[in-house]
């Protein structure tokens, strides 16, 4: 039987889909109710007491003081900067998790068919508006209350209401920016909005710093009138007497118009969202969520960068070395060259380490330990590939322990070579390298966290599960860095400090050799 195409697909499909899913609706509602109950409970326990204290403080303006006064003077310049930062953040987040998203099943079973896109996407857009509006209003109200507690003028209720309104406006503008980013997605072409918003936020932040330094009222007024991100704060500025009531009303009206315009633009953009963006974002969000629930931040981060990696040019490869012992350092160097941001971060962190060591103060020395570990962690990153999937290293002729030590060669060489010329200023730096690289290698090879780690014991202070998880994730630096810390104390002579550092380094490298990531099932 040859089927004749229908003139227009009908939402009847969606009505029937809802009917089919009635079976599971009760279970989904129970789950949603449980989540809502947990959120309300946590809010009641953690947020309500603080909110109550804030309201109390605001009523009596209990936080007054010279610093609070200065902060209030700078607020008219700072609030537009924060708003612009929120817009830039919303646009950035929309790259991988836009506000208009479909579940994976809908992407596969509805998107390829002539189901009206409006029926699929507009409900998601409206939900995003609600979430963003409320999500902006609440912090707006809290900031206004805090400002009032710090000695803000005018009535608390008026300032809070104005703050909530301004926050809601910024939230809705953020939703519109996010949908626009989805519509003109950077993975599939040039996107101009994000860089513009980022520049705007940077400029306004610099402006706010200028306002803080100079304490001139003109700075604030300029920022408040600079665009919708500032208009949203004008009602609050009027309620607290920083601008006239007329300015406040005009600002509020302009902000409302801007929001309406942005929402109309967002609606059009949502209806024209390319299916490939929806598909890709569903895939990335799924991978990220799975990694998040597995408490594996690195895999979560990798999920976000996967679409970019798939499109990046592979570039020219380094020539393969003939010496066998150079093979893994060659492989690691290639990985670092293809992740220039990571390599650059490592170099910058190691530079900070050398600078802090040159200061010669114990506190700077401890800070140098932390930055040194972070630098080593960036450079040891290629070693994680084998711990994530044992099959990757299965074809190589070395044991896992030997592989771990070979992966330490390149980071160790890079850190040693870069610190050797500066040994007169930072004599401990080369001696710390084995320990830092060893600790970073142990962390790199830990693999996915076993679920049993999260099962804690109930104590009067609470469940030990989260603490156990943190200790498991950070066990290498938590053991190695304190062991190195005494060497950074003043009064410790160089030779024993170097000897002790090298001994800690040898122990850390031995730990690396014996660390085994749990096998994934």
């Amino acid at each position, binding site marked *: *039987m*040859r*089927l*004749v*195409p*229908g*003139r*227009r*697909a*009908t939402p*009847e*499909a969606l009505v*029937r*889909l809802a009917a*089919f*899913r009635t*079976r*599971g609706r009760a279970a989904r509602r129970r789950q949603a109710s449980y989540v809502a109950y947990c959120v309300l409970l946590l809010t009641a326990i953690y947020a309500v007491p603080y909110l109550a204290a804030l309201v109390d403080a605001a009523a009596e303006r209990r936080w007054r003081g010279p610093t609070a006064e200065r902060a209030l003077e700078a607020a008219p310049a700072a609030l537009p900067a924060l708003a612009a930062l929120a817009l830039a953040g919303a646009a950035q987040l929309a790259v991988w998790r836009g506000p208009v998203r479909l*579940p*994976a*099943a809908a*992407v*596969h*079973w*509805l998107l*390829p*068919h*002539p*189901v*009206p*896109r409006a029926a699929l996407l507009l409900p998601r857009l409206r939900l995003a508006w609600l979430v963003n509006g409320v999500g902006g209003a609440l912090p707006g109200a809290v900031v206004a209350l805090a400002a009032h507690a710090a000695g803000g003028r005018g009535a608390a209720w008026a300032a809070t209401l104005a703050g909530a309104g301004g926050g809601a406006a910024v939230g809705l503008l953020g939703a519109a920016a996010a949908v626009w980013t989805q519509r003109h997605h950077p993975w599939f072409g040039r996107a101009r909005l994000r860089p513009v918003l980022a520049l705007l936020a940077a400029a306004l932040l610099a402006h706010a710093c200028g306002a803080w330094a100079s304490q001139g009222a003109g700075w604030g007024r300029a920022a408040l009138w600079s665009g919708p991100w500032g208009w949203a704060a004008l009602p609050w500025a009027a309620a607290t007497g920083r601008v006239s009531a007329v300015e406040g009303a005009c600002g509020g009206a302009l902000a409302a118009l801007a929001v309406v315009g942005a929402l109309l633009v967002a609606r059009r953009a949502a209806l*024209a969202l*390319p*299916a*490939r963006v929806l598909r890709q974002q569903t895939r990335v969000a799924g991978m990220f969520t799975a990694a998040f629930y597995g408490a594996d931040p690195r895999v979560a981060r990798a999920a976000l960068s996967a679409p970019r990696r*798939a*499109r*990046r*040019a*592979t*570039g020219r490869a380094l020539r393969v070395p003939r010496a066998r012992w150079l093979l893994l350092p060659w492989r690691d160097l290639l990985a670092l060259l293809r992740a220039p941001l990571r390599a650059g971060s490592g170099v910058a962190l190691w530079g900070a380490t050398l600078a802090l060591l040159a200061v010669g103060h114990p506190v700077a020395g401890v800070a140098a330990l932390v930055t040194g570990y972070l630098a080593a962690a960036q450079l040891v990153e290629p070693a994680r590939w084998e711990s994530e999937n044992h099959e990757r290293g299965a074809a190589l002729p070395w044991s896992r322990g030997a592989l771990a030590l070979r992966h330490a060669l390149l980071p160790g060489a890079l850190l040693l070579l870069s610190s050797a010329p500066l040994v007169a200023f930072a004599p401990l730096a080369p001696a710390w390298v084995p320990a830092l690289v060893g600790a970073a290698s142990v962390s790199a090879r830990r693999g996915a966290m076993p679920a049993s780690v999260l099962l804690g014991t109930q104590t009067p202070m609470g469940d030990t599960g989260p603490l156990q998880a943190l200790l498991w994730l950070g066990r290498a630096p938590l053991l190695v860095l304190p062991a190195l810390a005494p060497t950074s104390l003043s009064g410790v002579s160089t030779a024993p400090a170097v000897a002790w550092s090298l001994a800690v380094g040898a122990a850390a490298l031995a730990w690396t050799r014996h660390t085994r990531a749990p096998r994934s099932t």
Partner: protein
Amino acid sequence: METELLRLAGVRHGYGERPVLGDVSLALCAGEAVAVLGANGAGKSTLLRIAAGREEPDAGTATLRGRPADEDDAAFRADVACALAPGAHYPDLTVREHLLLVALAHRVPEAEDRVAEALAEHRLADHAEQFPAALSAGLGQLLSLAATRVRPHTLLILDEPEAHLDAEARAALALRLAATAAEGGAVLLATHDPALAERSGARRLELVDGRLRAAA
């Protein structure tokens, strides 16, 4: 005179510095089936995605009835049925309900009957009330193929439809593809199974070094 449906003209496409398709041209008419063979990584799936309007080529054009192939065009989606890659399912919908959803999305008259036919054709009748998560890989593939049968289309695009299918299922698939072409539809498939291509009566092309040529 046969009506030309799909035309790929001078299509070039690559990923980063790696070219995949180099100057591919193809015309597919109503009543015709074309099978694209080639080694792994030859670019077959890329070619199908471009034909299905899911990717834009770096150069060249892909048109359906003279209009650009664009999956975001509702008319294109009404005309073209695809089974390209396995996807997610609704965890709380049975096999039958998945197919009904597709049939209703296309306003197929007497959708329940059509779905029942497709279930029988694809040996899914005994699994109609199961959830897709309980299906084997082969049955999941049959579900994807059944989803293309419960809806109207003028062009059917399939990527390795023989994956996970047993010999009997492949033979039945070949017959269905031949019937689709005989009824005036067009079929474009990528396959590793030359016998499937032959039994479905498809014109066989091979993708080698990014170019299409007649298969040996």
